[in-house]
């Protein structure tokens, strides 16, 4: 019982996960399945971004590059070679190696570049990947992209849904452990006060690189899942929109909390789906991005801590009030 009380969030997560696991067996809707799969994928992506933004305090505008590397690796492997499980694993390995290498190099640059300079640099780096994907036509078919087949294990939508659900659960548990490990705690100290962390005797750069690599690799995995769910890849996976989505999801959900990233991903994807659905009613909904802009501005103005952050503050205040009351009772 005590465990339940101290781990409310985790308990809730597992209840929701169990519910989502059972969902395809009781309620059959292809559209909902696809939408939820999309949410799972972007949750992984948003959590990986949150590790940088919310936990380490690194602002990166180039997170799409890792996403794109994952998406293109799987696409190219599946297109060039037979879509078998073995090739899938090879693509996974290639993604892990590439994203780890790129994120290591990008992480190294945090030594010299702080805050917005770093953001600009990552922005231009991901732009570089975008241009490469456009111009290297023999490999990427340029802007048009290409379709590919996936291994038979991943063809069924329900199976794929369950696989994505398992992956998000695994990633969540892993990141929870990671952010609560001694190393993860130092990351949060870096976010709070980099110079002070340094003078406590921690090598800030090593930690930033570690966060950068973990985050990059996870984003790459999200990219693989994304491309496999569409069975199609084009240059849009490297675009600024992908990074902006992650930014929006983490900020709306609440930075510095893994739940926030997931809730944000869910909200944004649902809203996206709903708004494009409304496009039939009125042409303005074709431009759904306008609404996102408005929501974003409102959130930043009124809930700068995001949904989870605001909820936390409220419960924390209530607890404090209760504690004060208790004390008064004892005294009286």
């Amino acid at each position, binding site marked *: 019982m005590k465990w339940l009380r101290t781990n409310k969030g985790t308990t809730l997560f597992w209840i929701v996960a169990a519910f989502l696991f059972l969902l395809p067996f009781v309620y059959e809707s292809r559209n909902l399945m696809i939408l939820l799969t999309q949410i799972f994928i972007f949750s992984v992506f948003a959590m990986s971004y949150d590790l940088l933004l919310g936990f380490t305090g690194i602002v990166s505008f180039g997170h799409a590059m890792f996403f794109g590397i994952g998406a293109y690796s799987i696409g190219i492997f599946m297109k060039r070679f037979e879509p078998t499980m073995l090739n899938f694993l090879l693509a996974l390995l290639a993604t892990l190696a590439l994203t780890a290498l790129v994120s290591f190099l990008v992480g190294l640059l945090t030594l010299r570049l702080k805050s917005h300079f770093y953001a600009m640099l990552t922005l231009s780096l991901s732009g570089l990947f975008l241009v490469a994907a456009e111009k290297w036509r023999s490999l990427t078919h340029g802007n048009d992209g290409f379709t590919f087949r996936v291994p038979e294990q991943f063809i069924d939508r329900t199976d794929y849904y369950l696989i994505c659900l398992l992956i998000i659960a695994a990633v969540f548990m892993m990141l929870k*452990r*990671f952010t*609560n*490990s*001694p*190393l*993860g*705690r*130092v990351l*949060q*100290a870096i976010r*709070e*006060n980099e*110079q*002070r*962390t*340094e*003078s*406590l*005797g*921690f*090598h800030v750069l*090593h930690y930033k690189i*570690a966060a950068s690599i973990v985050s990059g690799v996870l984003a790459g995995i999200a990219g693989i899942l994304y491309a496999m769910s569409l069975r199609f890849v084009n240059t849009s996976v490297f675009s600024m929109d992908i990074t902006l989505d992650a930014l929006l999801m983490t900020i709306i959900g609440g930075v510095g909390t893994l739940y926030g990233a997931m809730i944000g991903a869910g909200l944004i994807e649902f809203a996206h789906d709903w708004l494009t659905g409304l496009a039939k009613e009125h042409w303005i909904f074709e431009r759904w991005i306008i609404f996102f802009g408005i929501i974003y501005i409102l959130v930043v103005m009124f809930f700068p801590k995001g949904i989870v952050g605001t909820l936390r503050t409220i419960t924390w205040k209530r607890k404090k009030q209760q504690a004060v009351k208790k004390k008064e009772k004892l005294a009286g």
Partner: protein
Amino acid sequence: MAALIETNDLSITFGGHTAVDSVTLTVPEKHFKSIIGPNGAGKTTFFNLLSGQLTPTKGKIYYRGKDITAFSPTKRTRAGIGRSFQITNVFPNLTVLENVRLAVQSQAGVRYQMLFHYKKYRQFEKKAMEWLSLVLLDDKRDSLAANLAHGEKRKLEIAMLLALETEVLLLDEPTAGMSLEEVPVILEVIKRIKMQGDRTIILIEHKMDMILDLSDSVMVLFNGRLLADGTPEEIMKNETVQSAYLGGLYE
């Protein structure tokens, strides 16, 4: 007495302005040294040189006879020189306990462990609590550092410094910006540290009447130069010091 920290002809120049000008001093082990001097005398700059935030343009710093002039702040902390800052410098959105716990963790050398939960290292929390009670801050363990009063932040800062268990403590104006009521508490904390008797302390202070009875020796900086260095009594009697620094007070 063996010299723990030695500086030799230490100078730093910003543009044309020499902030610290050929300062040579020795601090023996387990010594309590105070640095006094008017505003802009280069006290904090001198500290920054000792702790590695700045690199000297000339001169050398030795720690236990080893040349540490080229060491980074991180390396110096690990070697045994810890410092507090004049401006309050804590982790604002972490709890008080977590602030100190991070310092304990660093001291224990647990740096890259990423597979276990931090609660596994319960002894860190226990140790952190000990430091907090030493600086009389144990009842605030769960507050966010940002919500502490100024004086409490300074105490937290000292607790973090103590938790590093460095041989040398560099305290940069621990009572800066404090109300008069808070000052005795900080002094009490410093007295307790001194009583433990296992640290070498170098302290910058403005309110010199308070530290005179604590210090083993006092050094006076003026315009970046070492004006005098001696026991508190000698400094009080020193005429150049009186005219340069204490002037108004003792005329």
